[in-house]
């Protein structure tokens, strides 16, 4: 049913009214009576021994309520933060798992590592007191440069990880791949660095905790993308508070992009200390703390080789990557450069043989974990860079080379050589549509015209595939993941006919309150204003796995569909009773139960009312009430795919790159709300453009200081850095979920870096520039041009 508010309608985001009028409720907004405020004293060094902590002056400062050190937490048996995904190395050994203390006790391992927690009557008093703490550090050499992290002689981060190696992991059979390379007509090689990014959610991380002495209950408010998972980790592994005594609430959350999936030091410390202090404790990160301590993203050093036959068919791909884990293993860090990366290396292509070797290294930098796309942008950057480079090497059209190697539409379900089985897709029409929208044929004329203005114009493709909608629990379990990956939903009708849609997903900007309501409205015929989407509170929602990996609609939405089916099934029985008909004759259409071929009907609201006021009701057969729960565990990942085409102009005088055209054609399966999908694509591309041209987390290689530690030096993409995007869609519905949907939240960020970088490389190719590092900042592009022109002059 397509209605003004159902599936496919461009319904305006309902939650935006509250966000845009300043009436959202974020963690920091909480009015907690008698609250205290926490401030964390952090390490100013990348690597140092803590020889002593002198609190004597700080304790005397006005307003101080309590001060805790790493020793206090260790004595209280507060556990290590955990990494929840066990990756087995190429010998079958589990990854090295060095401890991750909530407060550093003996050693600090990155600039920003929390050392002391000061709790005071106000934020400023806590900070004043922290300034009086004397930490005696013995500064040690730091391991900051990823390319050298595994070298002999590099400073060691953890005794538990000799040589800084967390795992040496592989996928595929190297000997088979080597044999294919030996037969290749052509081999293309690239060396690339996937630059480190800082997520920069608009709302900084925050936590507040309150302990109820009477009941022994803890309540933790956190800026979490998955409150139930956070509760599970804190209960079962870190704090030992029984799950039923800990309530975690993630209220309105201002963006996450992955960085708020993880269990962090500060929320753990605040929760633990709330019972010691006996008053609520609040903490909100300052922006500079966000820069230093939110889990960063990407940060790979990769060498890749692609073997092709004489006709340009891909024979084999070989990829070697060093992945930066940072100083400690964050919650899902180990999975990102393995199961979310190497398994995607087939891309949209029939490459029959793939070998990937990934070495995860610890360094004296902030922990690195999933960030919008998580592993898949890194994979796409490798594949799409090397495919475009191969096209340049062979002097063939990059679109042609892609098309020649696409998995044909007849081959689905398609088993890749890297474990995944793609369920559906049809790639050639996508690239055709993208080339049409981008006016690919007209490009050479535009390049010539740009040249007449002194500009270097280039065009770049990126045909991405991703696996999202995490995912079959049993597959995740086999791969070492420590949690299930289903989602829950509850449809709780009230007697007056309105309904609460309770979801285990969490919305922090994605628009679930609109999309999920549309699904229910479409399926059950309930007007949108009678639907409320509830999420984010472990006490009021069914256990849920949360929001990440573009899973909310594919998995959470499917759970809602299942719960709605149960509502319809029950409603049919009630309606059959009221209409004195056989259940088998009752159909549900447009929100009404009908007996086919008669004018008898019972609107859903009437059945709901009867269920709560069961005076005329089949009580012997069914229970009263209209409240159904469902859990949905998907049969496979979902596989969105698409092609982006980026066109840039480089100013050779300044090195500036301007994106002059950007086309994205995606297959997200069925689309619930096109406007929200566009928003997700726009935001994703902006972040991808950010990675390609602007964003770069830079540490000083000697001292380990974060040089790009504020917006003065970390370049966030702004509106005028991107053009108006040209979007298109092709639809192959997902065959295994009831909505036929695939995820759209990460696609833009996954595909865009390669599209932009390929365009920049194309623009600079006429100068003889062969290697363009990412991000292609004005400085680095100018240096390349300058170097090339100097070389030409010599």
């Amino acid at each position, binding site marked *: 049913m397509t209605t003004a508010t159902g599936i496919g309608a461009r319904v305006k985001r309902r939650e935006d009214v509250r966000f845009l009028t300043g009436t959202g409720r974020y963690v920091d907004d909480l009015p907690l009576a008698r609250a205290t405020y926490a401030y964390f004293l952090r390490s100013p060094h990348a690597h140092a021994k803590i020889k002593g902590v002198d609190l004597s002056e700080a304790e005397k400062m006005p307003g101080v309520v309590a001060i805790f050190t790493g020793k206090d937490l260790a004595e209280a048996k507060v556990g290590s933060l955990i990494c929840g995904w066990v990756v087995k190395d190429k010998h079958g050994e589990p990854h090295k798992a060095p401890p991750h203390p909530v407060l550093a006790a003996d050693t600090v391992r990155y600039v920003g590592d929390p050392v002391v927690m000061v709790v005071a009557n106000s934020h*400023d008093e806590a*900070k*004043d007191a922290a300034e009086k703490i004397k930490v005696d550090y013995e500064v040690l050499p730091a391991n900051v440069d990823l390319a050298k992290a595994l070298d002999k002689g590099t400073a060691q981060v953890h005794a538990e990880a000799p040589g800084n190696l967390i795992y040496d992991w592989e996928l595929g059979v190297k000997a088979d791949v080597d044999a294919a390379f030996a037969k290749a007509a052509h081999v293309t090689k690239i060396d690339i660095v996937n630059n480190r990014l800082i997520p920069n959610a608009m709302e900084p991380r925050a936590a507040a905790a309150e302990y109820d002495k009477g009941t022994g209950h803890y309540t933790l408010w956190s800026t979490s993308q998955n409150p139930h998972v956070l509760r599970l980790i804190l209960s079962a592994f870190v704090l030992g508070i029984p799950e039923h005594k800990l309530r975690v609430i993630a209220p309105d959350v201002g963006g996450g992009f992955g960085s708020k999936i993880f269990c962090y030091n500060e929320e753990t410390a605040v929760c633990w200390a709330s019972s010691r202090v006996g008053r609520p404790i609040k903490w909100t990160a300052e922006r*500079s703390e966000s820069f230093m301590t939110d889990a960063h993203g990407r940060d790979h050093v990769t060498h890749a080789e692609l073997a092709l036959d004489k006709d340009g068919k891909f024979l084999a791909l070989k990829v070697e990557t060093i992945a930066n884990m940072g100083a400690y293993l964050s919650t899902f860090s180990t999975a990102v450069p393995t199961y979310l990366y190497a398994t995607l290396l087939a891309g949209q292509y029939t490459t029959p043989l793939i070998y990937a070797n990934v070495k995860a290294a610890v360094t004296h930098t902030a922990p690195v974990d999933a960030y919008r796309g998580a592993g898949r942008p890194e994979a796409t950057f490798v594949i799409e860079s090397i495919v475009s480079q191969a096209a340049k090497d062979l002097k063939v059209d990059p679109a042609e080379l892609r098309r020649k190697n696409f998995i044909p539409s007849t081959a689905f379900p398609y088993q890749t050589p890297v474990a995944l089985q793609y369920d559906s897709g049809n790639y050639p029409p996508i690239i055709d549509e993208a080339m049409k929208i981008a006016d690919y044929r007209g490009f050479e004329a535009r390049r010539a015209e740009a040249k007449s203005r002194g500009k270097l114009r280039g065009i770049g493709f990126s045909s991405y595939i991703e696996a999202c909608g995490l995912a079959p629990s049993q597959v995740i379990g086999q791969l070492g993941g420590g949690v299930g990956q289903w989602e829950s939903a509850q449809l709780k009708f009230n007697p007056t006919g309105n309904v609460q849609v309770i979801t285990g997903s969490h919305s922090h900007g994605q628009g679930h309150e609109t999309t999920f309501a549309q699904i229910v409205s479409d399926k059950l015929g309930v007007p949108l204003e009678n639907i409320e989407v509830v999420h984010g509170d472990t006490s009021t929602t069914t256990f849920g796995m949360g929001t990440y990996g573009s899973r909310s609609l594919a998995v959470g939405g499917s759970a809602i569909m299942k719960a709605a089916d149960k509502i319809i099934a029950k409603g049919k029985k009630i309606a059959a009773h009221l209409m004195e008909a056989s259940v088998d004759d009752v159909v549900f259409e447009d929100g009404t139960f009908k007996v086919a071929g008669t004018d008898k009907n019972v609107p859903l609201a009437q059945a709901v009312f009867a269920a709560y006021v069961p005076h005329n009701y089949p009580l012997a057969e069914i229970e009263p009430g209209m409240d159904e729960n469902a859990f949905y565990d998907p049969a496979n990942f979902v596989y969105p795919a698409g092609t982006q085409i980026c066109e840039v102009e480089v100013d050779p*005088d*300044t*090195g500036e790159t301007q994106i002059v055209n950007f086309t994205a054609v995606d297959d997200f399966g069925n689309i619930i709300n096109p406007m929200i999908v566009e928003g997700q694509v726009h935001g994703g591309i902006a972040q991808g453009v950010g990675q390609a041209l*602007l964003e*770069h987390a*830079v540490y000083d290689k000697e001292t380990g200081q974060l*040089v*790009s530690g504020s*917006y*003065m*030096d*970390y*370049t*966030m993409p702004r509106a005028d850095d991107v053009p108006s995007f040209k979007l298109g869609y092709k639809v192959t519905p997902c065959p295994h979920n009831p909505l036929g949907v695939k995820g759209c939240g990460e696609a833009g960020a996954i595909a865009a870096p390669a599209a932009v970088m390929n365009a920049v490389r194309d623009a600079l190719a006429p100068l003889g520039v062969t290697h363009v590092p990412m991000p292609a*900042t*004005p*400085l680095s592009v*100018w*240096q390349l041009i*300058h170097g090339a022109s100097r070389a030409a002059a010599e």
Partner: protein
Amino acid sequence: MYDFAYHRPKSLADAATVLKGKDEARPMAGGMTLIPTLKQRLARPTDVVDLGGVKELAGIKVEGSNLVIGAMTKHVTVATSADVKRMIPALADLAGMIGDPAVRNRGTIGGSVANSDPAADYPAAVLGLNATITTNTGKHAADSFFKGLFETALGEGELITSISFPKPDKAAYMKFRNPASRYAMVGVFVAKTGNTVRVAVTGAGPAAFRVKAMEDALAKNFTSEAIKDIKIPADGLNSDIHGSAEYRAHLVGVMARRAVDAANK
């Protein structure tokens, strides 16, 4: 932020009195630089003297062939003033390139010039237009005002009251933004008045400076062609993750040529 006493005097005289009488008093204009500095606990003044109540410091006047801009005049006012656009359009353009709308609605010319941030835009105009900085105790010529990194000729407690810009025949400002902060990584202000040409650079060095070689060449031939072979030495220029000294030196040339072309349009 540490605690401080807050004052909001109504006259320049009162402001000067408060500033003189206290150990560590700081004037505040729009607070665009001062407040972030306080929030990061990088400064610890005992007293903050808000100049927002001093009416005589704001506003733009035309005095003969000079444009006199009060210290508390906001960037947005300069960017949109009909008088500025008529007399020195390049100055209005420059003001319109500072920061974002919120910053332009609070930041002031006096605060910017007093601060002498190496990456600020106004210093290029002050120097390029040979402006005179008037304070509550005297006057400073532009050429002797910017002393170094965040350092000016202002004495203890001395307040900028206005800045007087003589009208040039032609002028233009070209800015290459730092990609992150969008302050000037290199900004070049070129002005031609009679037979003299001034070329002032901001962003590239520790403080705004003039490029004599370009000025001489342009005085003879005011075209971008005239300076195309003039290289700026990279020695002593700023260097950071966004721009090496060599890159900045190169950009001075590019921006200067573009400014000359724009001035000639």
